[in-house]
Every structure is written in C-alpha cells, then in structure tokens.
C-alpha cells in the first residue's frame, strides 16, 4: 500500500520519511483513555444518591493501529479481524477502542422506604483501554 501510494503520488518526497511512514502504522488519534467527569445533580439523581457527588467513569476513544501487538494487550484475534476487514470483507467491523480494565465505585443511596444503603459496584470506572 505504501508502494502504491508512492507510485500514485510522485510529487516531491516528504521531508521526514520516518514521520511519513509512521502515519500508516500509528494513527494520529490513538486509542486512549479520556477523562470525563459528571455530577449526579446533572442527571437529577442527587436526591437519592448521597455520595459520591461526582463520578468520573472515563471513556476510551481513538483509532486502533493495524498492528496492535502487545501495545494494547490485544489478543491475536484483533489483528486477524483487521486482516479480514482489509483483505476479505469490509462489512466486518474494524477493531474498536474499548475499555480493558475497570475499577469499582462505592455509592451511598437512599432507598424508597427511607433506609440507607452503601454498596460497592463493580466495573464502574474505565482505567485502561484496548483494541478489540
């Protein structure tokens, strides 16, 4: 593909060949963890969620490179699916940037009967992203 693109565009060569080739291996907007914070008052849940006042679930966003390797801890299947998408069937989706690990969240709420409950919920905050 690089050879084809070079043949098709015989214009002046780029100043930095290394950076030129890198764009094909490492996307500009790489898959990574993004910060996002919300307060329960925004959702009007602050009447029954006493704590925490704010919640940072985070999210994963970005492009997945063609060769993920060990960089994202992706399984081999991710590269296989990339190959399927590129070579065989474009209707098969490209691997996506999604959370790989999470941390729990403690929540203090008021129940409808007026009782109070402290509960620890699993997988509430994304802490690491992967391409799958």
């Amino acid at each position: 593909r690089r050879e084809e693109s070079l043949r098709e565009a015989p214009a002046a060569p780029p100043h930095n060949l290394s950076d030129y080739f890198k764009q094909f291996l490492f996307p500009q907007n790489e898959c990574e963890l993004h910060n996002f914070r919300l307060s329960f008052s925004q959702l009007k849940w602050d009447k029954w969620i006493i704590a925490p006042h704010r919640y940072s679930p985070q999210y994963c966003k970005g492009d997945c490179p063609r060769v993920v390797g060990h960089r994202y801890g992706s399984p081999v299947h991710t590269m296989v699916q990339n190959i399927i998408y590129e070579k065989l069937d474009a209707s098969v989706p490209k691997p996506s940037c999604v959370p790989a690990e999470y941390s729990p969240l403690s929540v203090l709420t008021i129940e409808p009967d007026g009782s109070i409950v402290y509960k620890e919920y699993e997988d509430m905050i994304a802490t690491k992203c992967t391409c799958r």
Partner: protein
Amino acid sequence: PHSRDRAVSDKTSGFLVAPEDNPHRLNPLLRLPKGVRRGYALLPPLLKVLSDQGRQNWESETPRLQPDSRALRYMKRLYKMSATKEGIPKASKSHLYNTVRLFTPCSECKHRHRELMKGDLHSVDLLFNLDRVTALEHLLKSVLLYSFDTSVPVSSATTCVCHLSIKEYDFSSQVCPSASHSIAFSLHFEFRKRRWVEVDVTSFLQPLIATNRRNIHMAVNFTCLVGDPQLNTEQESSLNVALVPPSLLLYLNDTSEQAYHRWNSLRHRRKIPVWPRQRDTPLADLTDDQGKENTQSKRASRR
C-alpha cells in the same frame, strides 16, 4: 464467566437482558437463573435507568422517605472510611462486605421504667422492615446502632455499664405466638468518647434473616447502671434523654454480578505480581490466559 466475554446477539444488551424478552433466541448461557431474575427486578436504579426496559423518570417516582439525620450522618461517616474521595472502595482485607444497609425502626413504643436502683432507662418495641434486602445479599454481620444526643449535657467523667436484652416475637408461629428469644449484652463505655454504640446481634438475627424474614419485631430493654444510683439521679435523667432508639445495621455480601467482589480482586492480585523486579524470576500461578496477557502487556509497555 461474565456475559461480555461471550458472543451476544446485536439486540441484547449484556447482563441487563431479561429472559422474558427472547427466551428461545437467547443463548442458554445468558439466560438468568431464577435467583438472578429476582436480582434483576431489584437492580439498583443507577443501572436500571440504563437498561432498555427501564427508561424511568426518577423524578416522577414515588417520593422517597427521608432518612433520620443521625442515621444519615453515620452512613456518610462509613462512606468516608470505606471509599476514597473519588468514590473508589479502599483496599482492605479486613472485611468482605460490599453492602451495608441501615434501617430505622418502623414503629416504636417507649415505656419508661424508672427504677432508681437499676437505672433502667426505657424498654422499646422496634419493628424493622427488611424488604430492601435482596435474595442475593447474604448476611455477614448485624448490629444495633445506638446514638447519643451530644447536645444533652452528660458528665464526661461518667462510666456506664449497660445491659441489653432482646426479645423476638414470632407471630408466624401458631403454636407459640409469643415465643421469645432473648440474649443479653454487657457494654462498658465512657460517654465522653462515644457518640455511637454498636451492639452486635448477628447470632440472634442471622437465623431470622436467613429464612428471608421480612419483618423483625424486637423489644429492646436498655438498662444502664450509672455509678451509685442513689447519688446519680440527675445523671440518670440526662442519660435517659440522651439515648435514642437504635437503628439496625446489616453488613452484607451481595453475590450479584454488578456488585464488587473484593476477594476476586485480592485473588487476582496475588496471581499477578505487581511488577517483577527480575526478568528471570519465574512467575507463579499463571495458569490462566488472562494472567499471561496482562503480564505480557506490562512487559511490552516497559519495553
């Protein structure tokens, strides 16, 4: 195994699927067993709103009863001790509970018995409704929580020994409608240091809660001996006012999928070393692929 690790159809939404929707199309592995289905019906509102079926407007829901301010203060304190400022549970191996419920009594009847010699304060009938406890929440510990009104002046130098007697009235029993079980506790504390007193009643309540008893009716007799009764009637009066009816605290282990299982996290951490200092050190107990994958990704990141 978590459902997200298995292939699901496009129309399902992970663990929030109710089998009533597509009982035949749904992968048998994803069909919820009966016990979990009950848990689905009682999913916490935080997750229920996100489900495809649960597009509820929580503002139009039946208004919630406001909890007792003292109870609220206690639970906020418990939250601060149990979680960081970001709301992440603190790592602790000392307890396995992931749920704590506080119930205030539904009804009470105060009977004041003034006995100068014993310094008996009052006997209280308490009814606790435990409908909010789900089938998947298993009891670890139950506690009667007494609080003292610190605005009432009580001599800080006073030491008080209290006797607690609990009676349980079994209305469901036709043979013995008023059968009672009683236990006694001896407590020794100093008022100047205590705002809360926790009385462990686990052994007494566990058989009741294990049988899914929804209502627990107790008569609590809180008797306090305050030094020399003949010389401390004033102290006894202060103590009488300072004492408030107890709340019931239940420390539970929620076994449902959405609850945080601390022991899984601890076990996972033990399997995967934080970071091997020596590259040649053999990594023990890497019997699962997830462990190998995590270790390889950590090595790759370091490279």
